[in-house]
């Protein structure tokens, strides 16, 4: 009964553990695979088709309703705008996630994209922004959408890149927008496409021709496949692009067109709480653009909640795991709308941090593995100059660098459109262009780690060997380790464009790329100036520049006479643990291990009942062993072994002798019945077994050790402290000097004798020998008989199994005959012989086995 209960408890516990594991896994998997609520396709009547055609465009849209929303309930709405080249389908995951978080979500393809009609007008207030307002009208009329007033839904608008600009512009033009989340987008389209990092310069910057070309070409293809110059763009935008692409210039009309499509034109009108994301790996819309949006909104309306996040990734891809970045942004966006669209009564709750940034660590092991990032936060947004600035002395002689004719070969920093592949270049310091194109100014090794958060600045003097119309230079901060290997953070360079440079040197304050980068102690910071970069339009004429440092601090603290410095912005911040705190894991592990230990304790084998005094050494009662498949190896075996006898267990091979002996030693658990040895019921590890020596189905020896070591180690492993009687045992083994040879070298007979000797170690009260004479020669067999007879004196008991009758006949006083798993006969040898008419035991045995199991004594 006890065993049954234990087993039940055991089964229950295992089931419990398996259940916990399964549930945990299922929860984990469920979290990772978003169950997308099916959207309803719909059409939105948008703004006018063009300046000359007032007919509205039709926009293809999907509406996602939260599955949890009851029929009479309302929820705030969110419009999700897609990026350039995308459609409503490319934001399906974001839309579904927001719907799951309880918002009514509208995703529509912008005009000129997906199934929507119309031409691309780059988020023009007259067209795309009008479309967005029309979408808000549509939401206001939908059942289930919460309203602020008639025709005014509670609505947020979210988007990245092209969609981010639409979100900001719509928030500027349409006062019904209640919250904004805009990611990796521009502040001024012109300053994004024409990079200028010379501080205080109003010269148009260096044209990002590769990015612009990629951007424009993704709007070129028409559905019918015709090849056109302008594709799906409006004529105005096509003209502006062609102008820039051909000459690298922008007409005043083009400039005005771009400005109307730039959030910078409306940031002073944005009063909705705004979450602004910027990508650290973004050479198209760098963090400066995000920064400009944030600072302009905060300056115009200081009370508007604005949060800025400089996340890993961006248009260049970056090193960080994109899945992790997407999840982080999704979580922040949902949180932002939950706070400011009021489905969480949380607007008055603790103010959200004003600034978050990610610090990316590349993977050291492989360029394939995605890097990880850690997120830090600061309560106020410090801008790109940091809340503190470290001045790092930099040094280096004036250096001459060559702008090659035609701008070839050019350096690679980032590779637009290639995502993470380009980002890798930065890990290896970027690929330098041709020889003599780069000037480098180095700091001393840093004495402590510096984490740059923002845009460092430096002041350089630039002279040219001949008068030139146009100068394009690319400055960058690099981190040089003590092996001399250089890393270009985020693969970013700062383009500088100077015009009408004469032979007179000019001093330029340079705004270096806005980065988040760790420069560990021992590394150096370097400011480099390069004449080429393949992503930009370069002047075609050759020139040789002389670049030198300027005495006096960087641009911001003009302390004349001091040594040249690189001004590095830093931010006092605290890390945010993105998931659970680190200590939770060891605690969890310990908790589970304690649980597992508890299972072990509850299922531990119970000690047997107290042994009874006196009685025979072995009582076998109703013993049976049935193997899976119904094979009964042993069936209803009963016998008792009195003290001081040599008992023979006799039977042909397969009679069940060895199985019975194994059950007597607790090696095999009987299906039924029991074995009592010295009054204790045998179970695995029963203490009574320490009084039994056994030799079952051949010896078990460590082949790599000598016979003596085997005996010694077996004795030490057996937990007995008495006298092992080693001398007697060695005599029985009779191995002579071979006892010190490795067992590997023994013959079968030698192993057999050593195994029997091992069973006799410590002279146990009961000796179980299974076929002990196998492999022994006749003199040794004779000797063994003497040993066994002698052993049984002094009250010790011996059980010998054999299929050889003669052996049993000559050695044993009592015999148990087995056949087919059952006891066929048992009793004293003489009695058996007498009952069977004085024949030899061999004949009796053959009789018995032949007759089956009817005969008992």
């Amino acid at each position, binding site marked *: 009964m006890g065993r049954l209960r234990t087993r039940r408890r055991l089964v229950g516990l295992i089931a419990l553990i398996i259940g916990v594991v399964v549930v945990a896994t299922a929860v984990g998997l469920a979290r990772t695979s978003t169950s997308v609520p099916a959207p309803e396709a719909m059409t939105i009547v948008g703004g006018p088709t063009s300046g000359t055609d007032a007919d509205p465009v039709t926009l293809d849209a999907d509406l996602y309703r939260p599955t949890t929303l009851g029929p009479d309930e309302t929820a705030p709405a969110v419009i999700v705008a897609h990026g350039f080249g995308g459609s409503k389908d490319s934001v399906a995951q974001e839309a579904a996630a927001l719907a799951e978080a309880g918002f009514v979500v509208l995703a529509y393809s912008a005009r000129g994209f997906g199934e929507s009609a119309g031409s691309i007008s780059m988020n023009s207030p007259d067209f795309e922004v009008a479309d967005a307002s029309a979408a808000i009208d549509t939401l206001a009329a939908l059942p289930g959408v919460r309203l602020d007033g008639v025709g005014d839904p509670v609505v947020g608008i979210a988007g990245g890149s092209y969609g981010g600009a639409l979100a900001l512009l719509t928030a500027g033009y349409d006062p019904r927008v209640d919250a904004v989340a805009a990611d990796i987008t521009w502040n001024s389209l012109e300053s994004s496409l024409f990079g200028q990092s010379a501080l205080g310069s109003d010269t148009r910057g260096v044209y990002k021709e590769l990015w612009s070309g990629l951007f424009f070409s993704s709007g070129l293809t028409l559905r019918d496949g015709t090849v056109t110059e302008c594709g799906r763009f409006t004529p105005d935008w096509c003209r502006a692009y062609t102008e820039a692409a051909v000459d690298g210039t922008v007409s005043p009309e083009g400039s005005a067109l771009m400005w109307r499509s730039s959030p910078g034109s409306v940031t002073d009108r944005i009063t909705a709480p705004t979450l602004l994301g910027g990508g650290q790996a973004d050479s198209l819309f760098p963090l400066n653009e995000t920064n400009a949006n944030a600072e302009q909104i905060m300056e115009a309306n200081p009370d508007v909640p604005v949060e800025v996040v400089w996340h890993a990734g961006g248009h260049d891809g970056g090193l960080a795991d994109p899945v992790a970045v997407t999840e982080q942004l999704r979580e922040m966006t949902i949180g932002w709308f939950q706070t400011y669209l009021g489905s969480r009564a949380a607007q008055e709750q603790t103010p959200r941090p004003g600034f978050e940034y990610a610090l990316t660590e590349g993977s*050291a092991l492989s360029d394939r593995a995605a890097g990880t990032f850690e997120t830090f936060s600061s309560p106020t947004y410090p801008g790109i100059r940091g809340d503190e600035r470290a001045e790092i002395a930099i040094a280096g002689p004036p250096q001459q660098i060559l702008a090659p004719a035609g701008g070839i070969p050019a350096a690679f920093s980032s590779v637009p459109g290639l995502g993470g592949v380009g980002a890798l270049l930065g890990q290896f310091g970027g690929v330098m262009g041709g020889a003599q194109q780069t000037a480098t100014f180095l700091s001393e090794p840093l004495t402590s780690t510096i984490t740059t958060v923002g845009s460092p600045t430096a002041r350089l003097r630039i002279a040219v060997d001949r008068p030139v119309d146009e100068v394009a230079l690319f400055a960058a901060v690099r981190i040089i380790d003590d*092996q001399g290997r250089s890393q270009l953070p985020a693969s970013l360079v700062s383009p500088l464009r100077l015009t009408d440079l004469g032979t007179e040197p000019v001093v330029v304050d340079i705004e270096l790329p806005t980065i988040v980068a760790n420069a560990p102690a021992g590394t150096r910071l370097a400011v480099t100036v390069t004449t080429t970069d393949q992503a930009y339009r370069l002047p075609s004429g050759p020139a040789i520049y002389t670049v030198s440092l300027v005495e006096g601090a960087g641009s911001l603290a003009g302390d004349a006479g001091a040594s040249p410095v690189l001004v590095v912005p830093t931010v006092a911040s605290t890390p945010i643990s993105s998931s659970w705190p680190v200590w939770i894991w060891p605690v969890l592990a310990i908790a589970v291990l304690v649980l597992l230990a508890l299972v072990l304790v509850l299922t531990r084998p119970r000690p047997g009942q107290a042994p009874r005094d006196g009685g025979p050494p072995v009582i076998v009662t109703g013993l049976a062993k049935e193997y899976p498949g119904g094979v009964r190896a042993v069936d209803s075996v009963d016998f008792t072994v009195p003290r001081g006898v040599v008992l023979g267990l006799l039977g042909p091979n397969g009679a069940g002798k060895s199985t019975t002996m194994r059950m007597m030693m607790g090696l095999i658990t009987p299906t039924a019945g029991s074995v009592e040895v010295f009054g204790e019921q045998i179970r695995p590890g029963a203490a009574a077994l320490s*009084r039994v020596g056994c030799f079952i189905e051949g010896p078990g020896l460590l082949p790599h050790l000598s016979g003596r070591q085997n005996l010694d180690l077996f004795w030490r*492993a057996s937990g007995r402290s008495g006298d092992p009687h080693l001398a007697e045992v060695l005599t029985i083994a009779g191995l002579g000097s071979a006892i010190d040879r490795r067992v590997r070298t023994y013959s079968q007979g030698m192993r057999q004798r050593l195994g029997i000797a091992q069973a006799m170690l410590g002279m146990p009260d009961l000796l179980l020998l299974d076929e002990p004479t196998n492999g022994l020669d006749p003199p040794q067999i004779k000797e063994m008989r003497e040993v066994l007879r002698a052993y049984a004196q002094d009250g010790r008991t011996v059980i010998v199994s054999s299929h050889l009758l003669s052996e049993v006949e000559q050695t044993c006083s009592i015999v148990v005959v087995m056949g087919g798993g059952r006891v066929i006969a048992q009793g004293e040898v003489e009695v058996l012989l007498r009952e069977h008419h004085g024949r030899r035991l061999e004949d009796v045995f053959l009789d018995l086995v032949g007759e089956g199991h009817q005969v008992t004594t």
Partner: protein
Amino acid sequence: MTPLTEATPGYSARRTLSVRVELVRQLRRRRTLIAFAVGIALPLIVVAAVKLGPSSSGGGGGFGDGDLDLVGLATSGAWNFALTMLFFGSGFLLTIIAAMFLGDSVASEASWSTLRYLLAAPVPRRRLLFAKAAVGLILTASTLVILVAASWIIGALAFGTSPLTSPLGGSFDVTESWGRIGIVTGYIMIVLLIPAGLAFLMSVLTDVPLGAVGAAVVIVIVVNILDAIEALGSIRTFLPGEYSNAWVGALNATIDWDTMARGVAYSLIAFGLFALIATLRFDRKDITS
């Protein structure tokens, strides 16, 4: 002789098969010595390859593509060399060795027929498993320590003793170099608990030592292949490969404990589960070997 009614005087289950005795039983085995020798041979072979190889000048080019950073630093000093050997070793070699020591533990006793004599001695079954697992883990850890120590000494002789330079940038002083190498070594040992635990379970389930080792290694390989399939997405978070290289976090200027902490928890729990199943199975297993 008076009738004895209790166990042989002097028998105590607590004295059976101590870890020390089990260590003596295992230490002289050829496979133990071979594993230790491999720990010394690996750095020797790599040093020979670097010194004699065609591209041995400079920062140690000529190793696998992509994995430049860590390996490129191998020749910069003893600690870096030891680190690189740990990186090489942790990929597969140490997994095999852990699987060998643990997978062979019980199954080899079964194959020698010694298992039944130990259990009949009687060594309590759980005590036998404990001694087996403990000694298997001790031998695995010893191989790991031998690998690190040999790499350090060989690296010091071949490349000098400049302290650790992190492939993530920055250098450490001598004390910190030991600390970081210690953390990496310790973490690798803990992550090895996964193949070790699996092999141990196999060792209890089968009587064929090679079968146990092989099955464990095959499972580890299959799991690694699964881990390489990016399409599995975040399911991979539940695979051990996610954590096998997390020791890189110890090479940051400030140690990144997060992934390592998860890896430690994962490995301990996995080992615990394997050990539990092995124990419950062995408690009631019929010993027919």
